């Protein structure tokens, strides 16, 4: 029954820093599957977690990712139809080997759970007092009088009055019920506490109260805490470490703050992008696709991943260290840097003098993200964009696209490469071309596909950019189009090459606000669907705030600051950025 208590990912040095705390809860290679009709569905797949006293671990993931199943497995409350393999050890005792009766001794007194708040989670015909009292009577040696007194104390410790004990569950509000659940879970002073969706369906004030309360008792009682939630803000406040689950597997794991500021897995980034509470300015975008039925082999996230390769279809990635104290389960070792320019400089000769348009610029764009290159006119943004796409040669520096060096148009002259959309749709598209010709041109030059395939693809992209796709429209000349329509045609022309990186140079600056909004939302939507990375060049700060994941600030040919978008807007470092943020953002002031 002994578990191997070797040092593990969650075992952190104790406060003394001298010895390693023995894990209170250790899960090794836990797999759970249940029968659904004739097939068996995997709910948990090879999960390993170790948690020592005082520690807190957050578990994030969409619904159906197996978070609650994990909690149920730890409590030993899985349905009879499920089968579980692997070890769940509490203080070196493998709970999986215990009989139901023996296991009951560990429930609540050693490992307790705060269930997800629902009307039925407490017994409707028993008073609050009785429901807490019965735990004490069953698990502790307290006399009935002592137990009754303790119920009162417990209620007070969660910010209620002992008189609330005579309430029945239906008389409690959602927030009160959450407190009662917490008091009940803490009654027998467990060493491991699991909290399932503590802030679900609570209003903002109650949410904060509950989070503060849990954080307070965690500090006081020093139990090992597991918080399961899909609300990232709650996890950020309550936990020091985070595991991100998808389809029963842990895809990423590391210190909570680091995971949020620099997610390594596409899925984690998707979760963050869907949460308005992490970056309140940016538009929300959910992770495209639904959790489908299990993928039998290969990476479970493969069908929804924007940087998947053929190997991902076959190889199941294991959770491996990529950075110190950071682990990710991805065949591509996390989100790849799709475009990397380093040390880029460009000099122009002007009246016998050299003008430095770019000075030692370095830029990195990761797969699927939106980087915004921001700066005033003449700061060298467009020059840098052109160099990055290979349209313009640089004086010094190197550009890598998907780890390959870009020479001339080597990234733009192929599918799944890099595409550029220019500022002025009136000059970037030949006016005498028909819509069809203009969009299909890159494919014609490439000359790979059959005409039928090209037309099919053409219709797809025209529909994607929300233009009419009937033959009449396709035969119309480009000069009959409005600016907005032409920009859509330009986008369609870029999309037909199925790019991995799209460089958009001030594409909305010549458009009216409504067309600009439509084009931007269209681009972000397409990005969310197809997963290309985007470098958006602009001088418009409010627009950047809406779309950017990462921001590069350019001034006088230099990149003077780059960081997470949220950080640039809330906490800029460089003097110029500060000025830019202070003046460029229109804030509603009364």
């Amino acid at each position, binding site marked *: 029954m002994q578990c191997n208590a070797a040092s593990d990912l969650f075992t952190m040095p104790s406060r003394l820093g001298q010895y390693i705390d023995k894990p209170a809860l250790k899960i090794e290679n836990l797999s759970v599957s249940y029968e659904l009709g004739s097939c068996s569905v995997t709910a948990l797949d090879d999960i390993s977690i170790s948690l020592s006293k005082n520690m807190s671990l957050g578990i994030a993931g969409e619904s159906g990712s197996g978070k609650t199943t994990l909690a149920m497995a730890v409590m030993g409350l899985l349905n009879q139809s499920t089968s579980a393999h692997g070890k769940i050890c509490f203080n070196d005792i493998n709970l999986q080997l215990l009989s139901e009766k023996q296991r*009951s001794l560990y429930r609540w007194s050693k490992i307790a759970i705060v269930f997800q708040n629902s009307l039925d989670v407490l017994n*409707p015909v*028993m008073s609050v007092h009785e429901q807490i009292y019965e735990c004490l009577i069953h698990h502790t040696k307290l006399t009935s009088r002592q137990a009754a007194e303790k119920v009162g104390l417990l209620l007070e410790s969660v910010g209620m009055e002992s008189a609330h004990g005579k309430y*029945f569950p239906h008389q409690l509000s959602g927030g009160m019920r959450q407190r009662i659940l917490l008091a009940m879970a803490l009654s027998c002073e467990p060493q491991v506490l699991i909290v399932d969706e503590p802030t679900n369906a609570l209003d903002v004030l109650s949410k904060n109260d509950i989070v503060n309360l849990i954080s307070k008792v965690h500090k006081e009682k020093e139990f090992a805490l597991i918080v399961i939630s899909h609300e990232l803000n709650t996890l950020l406040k309550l936990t020091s470490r985070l595991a991100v689950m998808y389809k029963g597997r842990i895809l990423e794991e590391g210190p909570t703050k680091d995971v949020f500021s620099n997610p390594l897995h596409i899925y984690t980034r998707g979760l963050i992008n869907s949460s308005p509470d992490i970056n309140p300015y940016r538009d929300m975008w959910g992770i495209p696709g639904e959790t489908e039925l299990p993928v039998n082999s290969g990476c479970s996230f493969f069908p929804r991943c924007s940087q998947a390769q053929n190997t991902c279809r076959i190889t199941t990635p294991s959770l491996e260290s990529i950075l110190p104290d950071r682990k990710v389960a991805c065949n591509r070792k996390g989100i790849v840097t799709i475009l990397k320019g380093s040390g880029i400089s460009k000099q122009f000769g002007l009246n016998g003098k050299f003008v430095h348009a770019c000075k030692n610029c370095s830029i990195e764009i990761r797969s699927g993200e939106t980087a915004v290159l921001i700066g005033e006119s003449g700061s060298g943004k467009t020059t840098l964009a052109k160099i990055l796409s290979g349209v313009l040669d640089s004086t010094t520096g190197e550009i890598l696209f998907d780890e390959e060096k870009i020479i001339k148009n080597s990234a733009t002259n192929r599918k799944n490469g890099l595409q550029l959309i220019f500022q002025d749709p009136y000059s970037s598209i030949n006016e005498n071309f028909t819509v069809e010709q203009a969009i299909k041109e890159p494919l014609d030059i490439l000359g790979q596909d059959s005409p039928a395939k090209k037309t099919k693809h053409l219709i797809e992209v025209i529909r994607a950019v929300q233009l009419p796709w009937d033959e009449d429209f396709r035969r119309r000349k480009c000069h009959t189009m409005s600016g907005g329509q032409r920009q859509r045609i330009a986008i369609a022309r870029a999309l037909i090459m199925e790019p991995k990186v799209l460089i958009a140079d001030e594409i909305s600056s010549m458009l009216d606000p409504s067309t600009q909004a439509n084009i931007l939302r269209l681009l972000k939507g397409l990005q969310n669907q197809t997963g290309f990375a985007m470098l958006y060049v602009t001088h418009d700060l409010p627009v950047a705030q809406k779309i950017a994941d990462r921001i590069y600030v350019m001034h006088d040919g230099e990149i003077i600051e780059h960081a997470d978008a949220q950080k640039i807007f809330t906490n800029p470092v460089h003097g110029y950025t500060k000025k830019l943020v202070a003046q460029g953002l229109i804030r509603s002031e009364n």
Partner: protein
Amino acid sequence: MIKKIVEYILTFFCIITLNFFLPRLMPGDPFTFLSSDTGEVTVSYTEAQIEKYKSYYGLDLPLSEQYCRYVGNIFKGYLGYSIYYNEDVLVIIEKRAYWTVTLVVFSLIISSTLGTFLGSLSAWYRDKLFDRTVFMFMVMFSEIPAFLIGLLLLFIGSAWLGWFPLSGGTRPFAVFPSVIYKSADLMHHAAMPLLALVLTRFGNFYLLSRNSMLTVLSKDYMRTAKAKGLGKHRIIFGHALRNAVIPVITRAFLSLGTVFGGAVLVENVFNYPGLGKLMREAVMVRDYVLIQGIFIFVATAVLSMNLIADILTRKLDPRTN
């Protein structure tokens, strides 16, 4: 609660009003019945005699006055004087009520307890062989009317096997050496009618409690109870049954009317000397006063049971307050 009591009083008034008018709208007349009995001795009343009786029973008075008298008498606890039995109605009912009430109460207790027990077991072992078999039998039984089961039992238990008496509530003219012998004899006679009533109600309670238990078992609080590491007994009795039994108890009290209806039929099948048999006799001889008395007795019993059910539900389920 006051609203409930007012409701009950109103219901009671409706019932006694109906009870007043019903026999008066029925065809037939106790006097013409008495005077034209199909016996060898033909007793006939003269017009004068009929007039005398009518004025004696107050039947010659205007309806409104008859009604006022009737209501007043009810509140005085006087249900009238039986025309046929020549005895105070309340006394007759009292004598007969023991048999029926015992039968009804015991059948309810037995069928609800047994039904709940089997129903809970069935729910616990849902979709296992035990559950499926019992479920099938219960659905079958719950659809057979009481008198058919009674007849079947009479054929098998009494006529064919000869284990139980064919009719009656006690052995006639028997002298018992002690109370034990007497109760044994009473039980022997009551067994078959009781069994008939239990069998008809049993399926109902079984289905109800199985259903109720299944709902309860799937509730989140059952998972909470299990997570708390409580003992199995505490989980089943303290958490599951305490919730599941509420509708069963309510139904037990509410079904009193139905059981009484069943008892009327069963008593006639077994010739059991209860109110059911008395009622039949009273209807046969158009003894309006007696019929009305029985109705009022039964109505009051059913109403008070409903009231008790209401109060109990409130006590058992804090959500109804």
